[in-house]
Every structure is written in C-alpha cells, then in structure tokens.
C-alpha cells in the first residue's frame, strides 16, 4: 500500500485505502465499512466475500459513490486510473459511472426499469457516454444482447423486462454493464436471485465476457463456491473490515483467519451425510456495540487475551496474503497447529 495521497503504480487499476462509510441513523452511527483496504490489478478478478451485513455491498456502492443518505463516505481514498474517486466532482463521477466502472446488481427482477424496453435501457448508457446516435446505440444494444447469449436479439431488444425470465434479465443487466467497454465491472451478488441451473450459466457467461473484454472484475458474494470457480483473488470481510485476503486457491485451501475457516467448514456439501454441520457460533455483532478488540473475538474458537482489547492490524504474511488476526503475531498460538487438533480444513470444492 502506498503513502496516502500518492497514486498506486500503473498496473493497479483500483486501490481502496482505509475506506470508511458510515450510516447515521436514529440509534447512532453504524460503521458499515470500517477501514477497508484492497487493490485490483488490470484484468484481475477479486472476490469480496462475507455474510449479510459485513459491508460488501456498501463497499461496492462506495466505489461507485452511490451511497445515499443517511449513509456517507467519511474517510479513505479510492484510486482508480490514477485519480482519487472521492475527490472528483459529481459530474466527473457521472462520466465514470456506467462507462469505466459498471455494476451488475443482485436482483434482475427489480434492477431494470419496467416502463422502458431493454433496448432503450442498454442504448441509454451508450448514447450518454459514447454520444452515439439513436440508431448506433440501438445497434449496439442488439450486438450486446447477442454477446450475452440472448437468442433472436433483434426481437428481444424491443421487449420489456416483464416479458423476460430472471436469467434473461440478468443477461440484459450484464449487457448493460458491458455496453461501454468498462475497465472495471462490479458484480454485486449477480447470481444470488437466480435458479441454480441459471446461476451456473450466468457465472460461465461472466467468466467468458470478463476474459474476452479484459476488464477487471470485483465479484461480491456470500457464496464461496461461486468465488472458487470465478475469481483469482479473494478478500474476506467481517463487520466492515477485511479479515483475510490472498490468492483464491491458497486462501480456500489454507485459511489463516478463524472466520474464513469457519465459513469453509460450514459448507453443507463438505460434511458427510449424518455428520453434524459445523457452524460459526454466535451471530454477527450488533453494529452499535462492536467488540472493543477483534470484531470476531466473541465468536472465535481460538480467542485469547490480546484479542479482547486490541483490534489486530491487517498484516502481510507473505505470498501476497494478508490476515487480520493476533494468532499471526504470536507464533506459539499459530493457527495451523490448533486447526490440526480440531477441524480439518480440506480442499476447496
């Protein structure tokens, strides 16, 4: 991570530094994103994983600067293409949204406007960012529908969202995100709302278009199986902070943070029939009363003295891996030993 205010090296497309986004509600302040750091190289895919309420979606909306009241970005830097997005004017940000950074949302049923045809909705951003004529933008919409594998695009382009199935609509949303050749695609739970068979198709499609377009992708999900299949690097979020990051295979095979380990051992398919499913005990902490020390401490099976009062820093442990855990600062309690005695982290599915 570079010095504050200094742009990251050329090969880094996006670098988020110490991002803090808060929601000021009646009962107090919720620090939904509490000092998040990560970076994404050109053409790279990063999976941002975590359970509901861990701050993944708020992170993605913060990058787009789409946080609405009562939420606000209160600190940090978001470097994209040598510019700090948090310092841009709203007008400059509008030029980036939907053009250089695009988003694929979770709910294909509601994220398309019901009163416009899908063609109009795809062509809209092409006309806006490319200053294309009506005709050219319309042709581009047809081309994009063809690219995302929608049959007879010339007919489909004139249809309204309600005339399409969920999977088709998600393809339209993807087509919309791709129409202006973005450098970064943020996909926020793109397959969560879909049937399992359709999920696989959409993931396959996203992998293909990501590879073909060369765009970097930030994939936000709570589904480790999706991450394992799709991304190169992974960052695990818990209570508004990144607790572990690294190459996907490394991280999933040898989790270094107790939370990541807990997530992996609680996947049902990894447990033999009749065996009790491992769960992470307790619940996500109340955002108004976060633990003083490590945010995972109350649920952590390896918790010990330093965890209660001191929040661990995100430390590099070599091999492009980072982990936020005191176990790595204190070798005698090293995690792999404890893991070997307890559960068995197997290979990624």
């Amino acid at each position: 991570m570079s010095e504050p205010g200094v742009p990251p090296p050329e090969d880094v497309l996006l670098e988020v530094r110490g991002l803090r986004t808060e929601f000021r509600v009646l009962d107090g302040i919720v620090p939904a994103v509490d000092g998040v750091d990560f970076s994404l190289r050109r053409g790279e895919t990063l999976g941002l994983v975590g359970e509901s309420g861990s701050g993944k979606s708020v992170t993605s909306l913060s990058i787009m600067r789409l946080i609405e009241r009562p939420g606000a970005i209160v600190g940090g830097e978001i470097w994209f293409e040598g510019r700090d997005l948090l310092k841009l004017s709203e007008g400059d940000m509008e030029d980036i949204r939907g053009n250089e950074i695009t988003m694929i949302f979770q709910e294909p049923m509601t994220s398309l406007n019901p009163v416009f045809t899908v063609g109009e909705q795809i062509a809209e951003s092409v006309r806006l960012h490319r200053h294309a004529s009506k005709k050219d933008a319309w042709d581009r919409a047809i081309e994009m529908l063809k690219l995302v594998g929608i049959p007879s695009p010339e007919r489909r382009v004139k249809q309204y969202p309600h005339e399409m199935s969920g999977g088709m609509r998600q393809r339209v949303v993807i087509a919309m995100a791709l129409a202006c050749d973005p450098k970064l695609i943020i996909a926020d739970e793109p397959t969560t709302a879909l049937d399992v068979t359709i999920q696989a198709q959409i993931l396959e499609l996203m992998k293909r278009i990501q590879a073909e377009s060369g765009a970097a992708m930030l994939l936000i999900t709570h589904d480790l199986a999706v991450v394992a299949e799709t991304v190169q690097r992974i960052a695990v979020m818990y209570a508004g902070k990144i607790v572990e990051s690294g190459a996907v295979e490394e991280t999933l095979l040898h989790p270094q943070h107790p939370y990541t380990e807990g997530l992996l051992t609680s996947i049902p398919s990894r447990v033999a029939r009749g065996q009790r499913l491992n769960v992470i005990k307790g619940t996500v902490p109340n955002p108004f009363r976060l633990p003083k020390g490590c945010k995972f401490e109350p649920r952590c099976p390896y918790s010990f003295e330093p965890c209660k009062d001191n929040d661990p820093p995100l430390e590099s442990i070599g091999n492009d891996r980072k982990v936020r855990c005191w176990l790595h600062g204190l070798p005698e309690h090293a995690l792999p030993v404890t893991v070997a005695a307890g559960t068995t982290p197997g290979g990624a599915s």
Partner: protein
Amino acid sequence: MTKFIIRRVIQALPVIWLITVVSFLLMQQAPGGPQAVFNQNPHITPEQVDAWLQRWCLVRNADILQTIQEYLGWLGVYNCTGGGFLSSQGLPNFLPAFLGGGTNGVIHGDFGFSISSGQPVLSLIAQRLPATAILMGTAWILWVVIATLAGVLAAVKRYSLIDQVITILSYVFYSLPTFWLGLILIFIFGVELRLFPAQGIINVRTSPAPFGTDAYWHALFANPWPQLVDIGQHLVLPVTTLIAVSVAGDSRFVRSAMLESLSQDYVRTARAKGLPGRTVIFRHAFRNALLPIVTNIALEIAFLFGGAIATETVFSYPGMGLLFYDGVNERDYFLLMGILLIASLFIVFMNLVADVLYVMVDPRIKYD
C-alpha cells in the same frame, strides 16, 4: 383495446341506470316537493295543485308504486298521459318513436322541462355548461400541475425545509371545508383587500354582453384579451377554493408515489449508469410514479364535480353547480335528474379514460 372499450361501455350502462334509480328515489324521499311554493298561497286550492302536478306527471305524497311510475315516466318506459306502459299508438312506450313508441323520457332523448322555470332541461344545462367547463378545466389543470410539482419536489428534497413546508401546508388545506375556505377567501381577498372579484364569472358593468349569450361569444372572439382577463380574475378565488383540498391531498399522494419509485432498484441502476440526477428523477423515477398518479387524477375528477356545487354557490358562479343547488332548493326533479345523469355519464367516461391511460403509461398492462 377496442373490444375492451366496447365491453366497458356496455358494463357502464347498468351502472348509470342504477345511479338514476337511486338518485330519483332519494330525491323523492326529501321532504316537500315542487308544489311547496304554493303552500303559503291562499288563492291556490289543493285541486289546482294536483292539476299542476299532473302536468308534470307527478303525484302529491306519492307512495312507492306511484314513485316508480314517476321514475319510469322520466325514464320513458311509462306514459303518464294515460297510456300506462303503452304509447298513444298502443305499442310499448319504451320503443323508439318511429316504431310506434312514446316520445317522453330520457330513453327518447327527452330530458323534460325544468319545473321552476319551464324551460327545457337540456337548454338550461347547455347555457351553464361553458361556465362550469371553464371553472373545472382551469381547476383540473392547475390541480394536476401544482400537486405534481409539489409532490415531486417534496419527495426529491425529502425531510428538507421545503418538504416540511409542503407537508404542513397540505395538512392545513386538506383539513379545510371547501365552503368555509371560499367564504374566508371572499372576506380577505374580495372584501378587505379588494384584490379579486368575489362574485360571478364576468364584470357585468364592463362586459359587452351577459355571459353565455351569442353577443358575448362574438365579443370574446373579436377581442379576446379583455374578456379573458376579466374571466381570469373572476376565476382566481373559486379555482383556489375548488382545488385547495385536492391539491393538498394529491401532493401527498404524488410524494409517496415518487418516494416509492425513487427507492426502487432501477433508480439505483440508472444512477449506476452515470445518468445525471435530473434524468434519473424525471425519466426513470417519475415515469414510474406516473402510473398511480394518472389513474388517481382521472378518477378524482368526480371530486371536482362535488366541489363545484359548493364553490359555485358560494361565489354565485353561474355554472351547473349553482344550477344544481337552485334545483335542489326548488325540488326541481327533472332538472336535477338531467344534471345528475350528465355528471354520471362524464364520470363513467373519465373512469374509462383512466383505464385507457393506464395501458398507455404502463407497458405491463394489457387489455384484451
């Protein structure tokens, strides 16, 4: 679509018929009757009153059967001049005249005569129609525009000072009774400040001819400006009175429709596309908020009709509302029935318009 419209028109016929039945029966239940004007006159005998009523096909203190006969006479199924259900040619009275039916009643296009003035009901209504059309048209346009602007503004600037002001004003105006607001406006702006005329539709001293006459229309078309300004000044207070409640209620309605639409995922999608705030609000959010608004506005035109009666009475505005009010006082049954029939036809028509508009603004809705 054509099939849908035809079906709706056919469905509307029994509705309108029922409206006429209920209105006629309710009216007959009101104490008194058109003959009440003779009650204090010692020179008129009960026999003379009965003969006078006979001329209108009415009976004094009618029982239920006689009331039904009176209604059927108004409708045109019954021939009160002695034929019963048969016309003077001995055929069923409800048949069209050229097939040997009767000529009385609305089904034969005969709205009858006003009891108090003796003039044909239709020509009385036709005289008053332009004034009411001007009042209601102006009110309707201003109502829609102001309610929409206030509602959208309040929704977009939610919880800001302007939203609070609009909210408080709309609660105040929503709670005011129409007639009372009219009287207060007359007192403040008409009597005390003398800013706006408080009575009528034109200034009778400066106008070239009485409103509604041919001479007036000629003068209006020859030199529209002074006439239009005159009417406009006379409209300020009645229109304000008429729409205050509706604007207040509908600005809340627009606000909530707009807030709901602004919170939808597709609005976030539109913002994520990089569209400027104005485009997001008006093209994406407002277009969707329109769906409930359009229907509501077309349907609430009925509300204007009700309001027009009180407003025209308070402002002595020579429209159908005042005509109706006078008709009620005189128990002018045929005049009232004529106005009620025309009003219900109009309201049923606006319902149909609402349905058609709904299809036009929402592609998800199909009628077949």
